[in-house]
């Protein structure tokens, strides 16, 4: 019952935030909507015993990534008018069509799909099995997934170097 209450509240918060991202004219409001969605997701992760992922979500996403977003919004400026002329013909109508199709597919799956591939519907028999504490996740991460983990280290290094190269103001050869 508790999970139901939390789910309903957090789902409402997440959906409201998501709609704010898409609808808000002011980019800062869109960022705040995304922040609300991210925090609601973190709560839903905790409900599902993904403690470590929830903590990472708050620190990395709600903390670092959103700060970066707000910094860039500050640099780019918030009060620029967004040009909403359609450069692709019928773009808005096609979007509405796509949304209707996707929602119909989701509705079909929700109504007809029985999620048969899931052996246990509801909470698993042993919740400890998926209790994602830091210790459990680290054990898995540094044994079976260690190669992928090292690859992410490489990826982050490359991304950092790339960002520095892109952001450096010194122009190489003053092109164009």
């Amino acid at each position, binding site marked *: *019952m508790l999970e139901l209450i939390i*789910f309903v509240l957090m789902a409402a918060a*997440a*959906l409201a935030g*998501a*709609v704010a*991202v*898409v609808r*808000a004219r002011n*980019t800062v409001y*869109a*960022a705040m909507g995304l922040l609300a*969605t*991210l925090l609601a997701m973190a709560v*839903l*992760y905790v409900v*599902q015993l*993904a403690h*470590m*992922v929830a903590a990472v*979500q708050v620190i*990395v*996403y709600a903390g*670092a*990534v959103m700060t*970066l*977003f707000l910094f*860039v919004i500050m*640099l*780019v400026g918030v009060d620029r008018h*967004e*040009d909403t*002329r359609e450069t692709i013909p019928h*773009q*808005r109508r*096609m979007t509405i069509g*796509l*949304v209707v199709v996707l929602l119909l597919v989701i509705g079909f799956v*929700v109504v007809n799909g029985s*999620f048969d591939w899931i052996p*246990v*519907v*509801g*909470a698993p*028999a*042993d919740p400890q*099995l*998926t209790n994602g504490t830091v210790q*459990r*996740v680290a054990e*898995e991460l540094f044994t079976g997934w260690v190669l*992928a983990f090292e690859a992410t280290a490489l*990826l*982050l290094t*490359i*991304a950092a170097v*790339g*960002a520095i190269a*892109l*952001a450096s103001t010194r122009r190489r050869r003053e092109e164009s």
Partner: protein
Amino acid sequence: MSLVVTPGWYMTLAAILFVIGAVGILTRRNALVMFMSIELMLNAVNLTFIAAGRAIGSLDGQLAVFFVLVVAAAEVVVGLAIIVAIFRRRQSASVDELADMKG
């Protein structure tokens, strides 16, 4: 009879969030808002990973989310750097003005 929140509920929520993110990509022209919509879609996928992992009693779903988070962080860093670099040159963050590579 008490209502139990099944994995299907989480996946439905995730699917709806994904659709909203897709609409953001398709309708908005501001590169920053499009980026936020991408983050929205990535988060929706993360929610399905965690719900599915919990349902089958495996920790692998959470590990997949961890890797998605890392890739998303790298993507944001490079993407925002590109947006800032473009803005410095063009004074605009609208994707419609970036059609120079059109053949």
